[in-house]
């Protein structure tokens, strides 16, 4: 089965290479080829959840072989319940991105799709890399295509925005690189699972202070990517200037790299520090929720509005992750998917509006429901999903996050819940100003959605309903992986035990699991390097 995962990872990149062979005059062939490749990747990835074994905490679909002998860097990829659906999110959004760029990209079509497909491979790699060095490589690879996507096909201030995006991200990831090298110094390996086992078995430890610095080094990279308040200012610029497909990938996937990193690395690798710093991080997340919502409320630019709403939504995710409560963490993972689908769809819709009106300013719109009722309906459903209406996807994630956080800190949950009210305020106000009222002379002739656009939006909306009504299909596959990760991270005492006054034997199982892992752990190779303190 490991072949499958390799296919999913490299098919877009290989497709991108073949794309180069197609003559640039054949615009339709270029588009079709990109569509076929992204569609094939998506279909392949659809197999994953059905072949996935939800009862196992171990990585699945694993390929683990040496890539570089010395230093020992491994090509180690795998999927667990945490990353499973994130892969599907990427492949799904990529198809939509190809479709939405069909007509709106008219120049350098070949290069555009080349970078788009390359971005797909890069982002998939981030979520499946199980070797820290490999992870870092994919992490940085994603920068390049997006830099060009924004810088070449963006709007007026595209160069500024692209540079800002790259500089911010790079500044953070350099800290992470130092952290990765430092970890290698201690453990003598870049392999994530081996490091995790080393920590669990207690063979290698770091001092409390060392752990702090390491945590912060990783945290810096992820917090900028999320982005966490006050490191978010690159995001509105990047979104506003990016072409539609860039915004979709940025909001839908790139931001999740940050939250995924926090969850995958910061929590289990540096549990002590993560616990100690949880409170300030959660406060930043809370500020992000409220601050992002308030700023979203007053934005005159549609894309900026959605960008700030992303800051708020991602605040929820970070809040859930740092609560160390399993319900909240699963809610947070779910919320990553939800945000990808809903905000992705919002950017698609804004892109469609832009194609028609050539503006993103809310004041230049109004009354659009009259000429384009179908577009308005899709926009409304997507907005409702974004503000967490029950039976749509976001509600499930937000509810689980709030439920879990409330078990730990009542006040935080109450404050976060104000975001629910605020999100209704800014989204509905925006919807009103864009779609309701009397349409202006220019808007009255605006065409409604065409077949291609419907083909983009129908699956997105269907997914919102599906994820809002049948959430256990997704959530149940995360149970074991999340529990195992939180065991490494030293989860808080579970206060809620359902229907059983007698404690469940669950912890024992986990202990066995842990024991088995540490037993089977091979001897760690002695390090060539001395830890820095010596």
């Amino acid at each position, binding site marked *: 089965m490991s072949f499958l995962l390799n296919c999913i990872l490299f098919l877009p990149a290989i497709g991108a290479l073949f794309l180069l062979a197609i003559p640039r005059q054949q615009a339709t062939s270029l588009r079709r080829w990109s569509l076929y490749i992204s569609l094939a990747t998506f279909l392949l990835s659809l197999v994953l959840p059905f072949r996935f074994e939800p009862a196992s905490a171990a990585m699945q679909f694993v390929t683990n072989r040496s890539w570089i002998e010395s230093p020992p860097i491994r090509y180690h990829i795998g999927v667990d319940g945490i990353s499973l659906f994130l892969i599907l999110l990427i492949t799904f959004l990529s198809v939509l991105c190809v479709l939405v760029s069909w007509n709106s990209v008219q120049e350098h079509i070949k290069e555009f799709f080349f970078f788009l497909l390359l971005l797909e491979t890069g982002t998939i790699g981030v979520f499946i890399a199980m070797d820290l060095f490999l992870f870092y490589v994919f992490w940085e690879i994603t920068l390049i295509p997006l830099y060009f996507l924004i810088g070449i096909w963006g709007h007026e201030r595209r160069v500024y925005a692209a540079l800002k995006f790259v500089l911010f991200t790079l500044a953070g990831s350099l800290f992470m690189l130092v952290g990765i090298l430092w970890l290698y110094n201690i453990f003598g390996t870049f392999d994530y699972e081996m490091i995790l086992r080393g920590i669990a078995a207690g063979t290698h430890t770091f001092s409390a202070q060392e752990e702090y610095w390491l945590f912060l080094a990783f945290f810096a990279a992820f917090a900028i990517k999320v982005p966490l308040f006050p490191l978010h*200012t690159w995001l509105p610029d990047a979104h506003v200037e990016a072409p539609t497909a860039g915004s979709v990938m940025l909001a839908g996937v790139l931001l999740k790299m940050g939250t995924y990193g926090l969850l995958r690395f910061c929590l289990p690798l540096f549990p002590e520090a993560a616990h100690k710093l949880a409170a300030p991080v959660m406060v930043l997340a809370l500020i992000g929720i409220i601050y992002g919502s308030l700023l979203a409320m007053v934005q005159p630019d549609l894309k900026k509005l959605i960008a700030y709403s992303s800051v708020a939504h991602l605040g929820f995710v970070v809040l859930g992750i740092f609560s160390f409560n399993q319900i909240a963490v*699963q809610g947070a993972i779910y919320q990553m998917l939800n945000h990808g689908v809903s905000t992705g769809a919002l950017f698609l819709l804004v892109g469609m509006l832009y194609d028609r009106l050539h503006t993103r300013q809310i004041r230049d719109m109004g009354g659009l429901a009259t000429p384009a009722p179908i577009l308005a309906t899709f926009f409304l459903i997507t907005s409702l999903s974004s503000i967490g209406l029950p039976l749509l996807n976001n509600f499930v994630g937000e509810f689980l996050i709030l*439920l879990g956080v*409330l078990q730990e800190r009542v006040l935080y949950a109450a404050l976060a819940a104000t975001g629910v009210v605020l999100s209704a*305020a800014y989204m509905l106000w925006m919807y009103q100003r864009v779609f309701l009222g*009397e349409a202006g002379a220019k808007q009255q002739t605006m065409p409604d959605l065409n077949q291609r656009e419907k083909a983009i939006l129908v699956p997105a909306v269907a997914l919102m309903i599906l994820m809002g009504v049948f959430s256990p299909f997704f959530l149940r596959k995360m149970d074991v992986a999340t529990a195992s990760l939180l065991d490494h991270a030293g989860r808080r005492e579970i206060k*809620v035990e359902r229907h059983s006054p007698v404690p469940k034997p669950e912890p024992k199982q986990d202990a066995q699991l842990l024991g088995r892992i540490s037993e089977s752990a091979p001897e760690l190779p002695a390090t060539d390097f001395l830890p820095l303190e010596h």
Partner: protein
Amino acid sequence: MESNLQLWLIPTVPLLGALWNGLWGKRSSERAVASVAVGAVAVSFLLALRAFFALGDAPYLESYFSWIAAASFQAHFNFYLDPLSAVMALIVTGVGLLIHIYAVGYMSQEGGYYRFFCYMNLFLFFMLTLVLAGNYLLMFVGWEGVGLCSYLLIGFYFRREDAADAGKKAFITTRLGDFGFLIALLMIYSTFESLNYSEVLPAAASLPVESTAGPLTVICLLLLVGAAGKSAQVPLYVWLPDAMLGPTPVSALIHAATMVTAGVYIIARSSALYVHAPQALFMVALVGGITAFYAATIGIVQTDIKRILAYSTISQIGYMVMACGVAAFSAAIFHLMTHAFFKALLFLGAGSVIHALGGEQDIRKMGGLRHYLPRTYWSFLIACLAIAALPPFSGFFSKDPILWEAYVSPYGGILFWLLGILTAGITSFYIFRLFFLTFHGHSKTAVATSSGIHVAEPAHHGVPHESPPIMTWPLMILAALSLAGGWVGIPALWRGGDHWNLFLAPAFRLAALPTEHAVSHDAATEIIFTLASILVSVAGIALAYLLYCRRPELAAAAAARLRGLHTLVLNKYYVDEIYRSLFVQPLVVVSRELLWKGMDAAAIDGSFQGLANRTRRLGDRVRRMQSGNIRSYAGWVVLGAILLISFMVGLAS
């Protein structure tokens, strides 16, 4: 009891109707759209009726599939049928059916016919989910869903700026309340480790009564916040009068008969929690009592027929909430039912009037309509008598127990009784003011038809005419219900069977009052109280008759005499303005000027920008060191060498 009632069909059939009309309605004829929508509601009503008659002693549960499941948390789609939810389902589908039929006539030639019926059916889906849900989370689904439909239907004439505004205001204000509900939901789970009624309610009943504020009190107060939002209670009532910009059948169904009573339903549903949190119960009674009185006073001076009815609705729901607050849950639901009949009738009657006058809603411009609209007139009169609570109309039998309980209940007191009886007097006054101004006196319709302010409502011109039969038949059925609907609850005192209370008793078994309640008041006291309330109602009617029929100049004189007070009340105590300048404006201005322009753009992004600029300047300076000048390079080399040597010397020594 039947083994399988398939309760899920009750809400799902309207959902299918909504989907059908939403997807294909645009291409269908009005007739087809109406058949689908009305047919769906009719089927749903029949199913609810079947469920009602299948009702047994114990609550009946149906569970379908898991909705949310993560780690130890589980929530199902499950439905719960007990006397309370059965009655609610019947009210919703029954009144809903009549209003749908009425709307077939009212909304024709309106544009957006399919959209209207799609939303209406969708509303019924959510409302039925709300009342039939078997756990608080699923109730929240319905709760939010009806809010959404309310938003869509208030803003039905979305090209009008004010209608769109009103829809948004309704959604956001009720969402403030939903915030309370949501937190309550989370707290219920962390207290009881379940959200199912079948587990939460017995667990709550087994807890001791909280003498000081504990978790139950907190939960109950938060639920009250939710109820206040949805049921338009003080201080969150401001959205309901504006909601009247929606089409009139919407006002009747959503903003009078069903959705706005959801707050009463949730309190009654959680009665087992409330009776264990007496402080919360007191707050419920207080909020209800104040709302009932306060909204009624505003109703006295308003001039828009629908707005008067809106304030009347707020006031009447206040009554129900107050009844809950004195632990008279069954009386509250009784009033909820009779109110659904007569208030729906009032709204539909008002709609008939507006329809006849080509969109006129100002009662000062009406008058003498009894000659033109005989069926509307008589049915409207019955509704007025019902809301004024005169025997033998339904309102009498439902309002009287509330007043009585407000006085005798261990949670009640003379204060609540006073609030109640005052409100009763004001109610019968304002409703008959409306009645006399509209149907009696001289016809002023010439003025009305030419004004044509409300362009969105059906515009007919010429002599006022009675509505078509498809609109008057529902009026007459509702009139019959407003008259006789209260007879199911005639208490033992009036030699009735007290059927209502006996029927609902199982639903409130867990909220049974402490036994010392048995301190019985003799029948004579109760009769005196009843006579007092009848007297007050009659006085209200008499005063209205005097001021608006006999001596209209007196009303104007009174208004002139009390100019300050009159202006204050006419402007609804300026609460909207206060909210706007206290909360809404500051939030927007602070967000825009301080947070966005000050903090985000200047402080945060500015400092990053500054960092970038400084880096660039530094780089610029370093660049100049590489001047290409050999002598300068030699100088740097020497400087470096000196530094290096002195460092090594330092190390050596």
